[in-house]
């Protein structure tokens, strides 16, 4: 039977902030554009972002400017960032935020009626434009409302299982409608991956269930390179109780607004780890500090530490942190204006991702683009809070324009029939094939491997063992079968492909983590606790060479015009 096919100039996979921003830019550039998402429109993981958008507007701190934002981002990323991407990001973020306001976004104000900005870890000045603690929702809704009036077609609850190539070029994608199980083929002159991260490879994560690293795996399979995969950000503060909400995010804004971290002895322990920045140190430092406190027996009853805002005025807390107040009150039965929260690290963000040209979002695969958390380079070894929302606006727009311009110069492609047939056979195989592995079981095992061997602290033995176990899981994953064989709204079916994607991403992370013999940013090796000179100059790139996953160290991409700024910051940190 012929598969339903849709043809577009540009197809964007993912409707989080970067996907929607890319689609809007592509449509504005004249491309016939569609976006595809696993969830309903407006439900993507960006809605979870709380704290704000980092942009050096200087509304609150007039001395702020792109140079300082650039330097903060580089320092946060421990100088492994792609310099030019960090520069573009810092320079363009203010315009992207103003543009959101022109599209109807509503942000908290200063007394002189301009956008207010709040303090956040690693940012020299008050820089985060925000609305309460639900800034991500504001972004998503604004972009969603803009997108549905921009002539963009939206395929909701549609699962993409493969990219389709014609020789070297990506020409489309294959998938199915989740509610019915009907197969779909998409042809596209260019395709942009904006699928976000892969938090679901860990049991303790702040990520939505959709965050299964699909884009990393799809792009890798299509021949793209990935960079910085070893750098996984564990947000310092996730909920640790009750069990059903373990990992749920407790926004950094809690600390930005004056929250204090204490251990079971009542000690404000950040004084020992980063006396200068204290609670507002970078996320990697705070996460490791909390982990260490709990590990050394100074933790809270449920294995975290205490985060306290009860010394602040209770009305102020309810106004500034309304969703945190609700979250703890509803889910944990804790009134945060009276009692301390219990918090611990939770997998939050992937600094690494698909390697792109920052100016256009283009990968090394012709026709394939990427943006947002799915792509890598901008954040280096560690991302500053607030830099993801600005990242997705800046590079979402750039990838949308890049994909549209490329599409406008490309003839309409044909989808090779054999490729489609292979994709269909794979997808159908999970439903009706001979497989016997249960995807739910494999997923749990995968999460256990990643938590035990590839967590906040890593060492050679743990990583080697994890890689062995992941390779075994990979073998078993060739034999997956959904527990139910009905095609309509079948979560086990979807999970079969997702588990394979997650195993692929986990292998990339574990192997890169084994290769980087040093500790830096979101990567901490117990057996190599310090910076290493060689690794301070190199990124790890993962790619497929003749079917073998290959890791290469490549020099950090510097930019001549920025050397002075970078060196000035390095010098200042030494002093």
């Amino acid at each position, binding site marked *: 039977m012929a598969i339903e096919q849709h043809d577009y100039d540009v197809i964007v996979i993912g409707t989080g902030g970067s996907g929607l921003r890319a689609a809007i830019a592509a449509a504005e550039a004249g491309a016939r554009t569609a976006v595809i998402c696993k969830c*309903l429109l407006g439900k993507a993981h960006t809605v979870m972002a709380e704290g704000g958008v980092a942009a050096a507007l200087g509304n609150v701190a007039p001395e702020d400017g792109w140079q300082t934002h650039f330097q903060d981002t580089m320092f946060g990323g421990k100088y492994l960032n792609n310099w030019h991407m960090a520069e573009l990001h810092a320079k363009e973020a203010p315009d992207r935020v103003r543009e959101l306001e022109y599209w*109807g976004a509503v942000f908290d104000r200063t007394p002189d009626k301009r956008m207010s900005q709040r303090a956040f870890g690693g940012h020299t000045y008050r820089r985060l434009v925000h609305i309460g603690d639900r800034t991500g929702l504001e972004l998503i*809704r604004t972009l969603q409302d803009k997108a549905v009036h921009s*002539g963009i077609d939206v395929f909701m609850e549609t699962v993409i299982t493969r990219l389709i190539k014609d020789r070297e070029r990506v020409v489309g994608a294959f998938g199915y409608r989740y509610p019915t199980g009907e197969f779909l083929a998409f042809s596209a002159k260019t395709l942009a991956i904006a699928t976000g991260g892969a938090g679901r490879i860990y049991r303790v994560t702040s990520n939505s269930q959709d965050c299964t690293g699909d884009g990393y795996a799809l792009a890798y399979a299509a021949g793209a390179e990935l960079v910085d995969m070893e750098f996984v950000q564990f947000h310092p503060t996730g909920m640790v109780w009750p069990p059903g909400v373990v990992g749920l995010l407790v926004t950094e804004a809690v600390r930005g607004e004056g929250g204090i971290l204490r251990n079971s002895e009542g000690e404000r322990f950040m004084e020992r780890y980063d006396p200068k920045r204290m609670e507002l140190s970078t996320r990697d430092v705070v996460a490791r500090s909390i982990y260490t406190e709990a590990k050394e027996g100074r933790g809270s009853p449920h294995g975290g530490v205490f985060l306290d805002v009860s010394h602040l005025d209770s009305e102020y807390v309810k106004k500034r942190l309304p969703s945190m107040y609700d979250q703890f009150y*509803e889910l944990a039965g804790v009134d945060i204006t009276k009692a301390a929260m219990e918090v611990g690290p939770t997998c939050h963000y992937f600094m690494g991702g698909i390697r792109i040209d920052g100016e256009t979002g283009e990968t090394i695969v012709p026709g394939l683009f990427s943006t947002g958390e799915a792509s890598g380079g901008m954040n280096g070894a560690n991302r500053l809070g607030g830099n993801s929302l600005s990242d997705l606006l800046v590079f979402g727009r750039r990838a949308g324009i890049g994909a549209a311009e490329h599409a406008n110069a490309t003839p309409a492609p044909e989808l090779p029939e054999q490729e489609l047939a292979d994709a269909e056979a794979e997808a159908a195989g999970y439903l009706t094939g001979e497989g016997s592995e249960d995807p739910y079981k494999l997923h749990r095992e995968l999460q256990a491997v990643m938590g035990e061997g590839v967590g906040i602290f890593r060492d050679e033995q743990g990583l080697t063992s994890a890689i062995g176990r992941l390779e075994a899981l990979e073998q078993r994953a060739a034999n997956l079968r959904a527990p139910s064989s009905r095609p309509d709204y079948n979560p086990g079916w979807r999970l079969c492909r997702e588990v394979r994607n997650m195993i692929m991403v986990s292998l990339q992370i574990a192997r890169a983590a084994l290769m980087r013999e040093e500790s830096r940013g979101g990567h901490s090796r117990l057996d190599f606790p310090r910076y290493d000179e060689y690794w301070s100059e190199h990124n790890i790139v993962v790619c497929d060479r003749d079917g073998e996953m290959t890791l290469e160290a490549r020099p950090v991409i510097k930019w001549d015009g920025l050397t002075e700024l970078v060196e000035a910051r390095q010098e200042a940190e030494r002093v």
Partner: protein
Amino acid sequence: MSTEAMDRGEEAVTRKLKIWRGDVTSGGLVDFEVQTEPGMVVLDAVLEIQRSQAPDLAVRWNCKAAKCGSCGAEVNGRPSLMCKTRLDHLAADEPITVEPLQAFPVIRDLVTDVSWNYEVNKKIAPFTPKPDAEWLIGQEDTDRMSEFRKCIECFMCQDVCHVLRDHGLFSRYYGPRFMIRLASLEMHPLDGLDRIEMIGDEAGIGLCNITKCCTEVCPEGIHITDNGIIPLKERLVDRRYDPVMKILQRGRRNNRRKPTPEDLGPDSRVS
């Protein structure tokens, strides 16, 4: 077990659930049992059933943090986000019934077809700034709009709205969700469109008879009726029936132009 432990939900017990299973042709409640964990929410129980007992149980969810609004269902007859509803807050001696939202066509089990809402949103012209807008907005205006913009589009207010649920007037009333969307636009000091007439006509605000059912089920605590719908109704009445207000509003109207079809922009298909 100690009272304190019970309060904190730390004792594991077995709970009975009755989950609606079926599709557009037929369906009914099916009994399940789950072993509870402390602090367990309805969605945890449903997912555990899906994992261990009914792998083809259809349920829509994503963030599991009460932020995306995907997992709305009728729990013991009351529209609730399953991810935010704790089992130990529901009567312990009775089974927990979980049914799909009733106002929308069921796809299967707990999943309904909410695409009508996306069609409605497309009919609302997006924020269109006044040409001479100076981008200065006060915090008071921000707070007023922000209450409406907290909406996570769970569509539970639509589900309980009598106009939609009982009378099926989907072609004549946009429903509470889009009343507050319109309120956030109407109360935006820099929006350049005069939306009052369409709020009265196409959006059908007159059909709302202020029973406040929408407000009661809003998981974000938005005062949909008091702060959104009633002020819009007042503005419409002032516009249409109050001669003094008509004159007073003339200046305002001059500042806001009538919407045109072009304000909707190129059509997008959301499916």
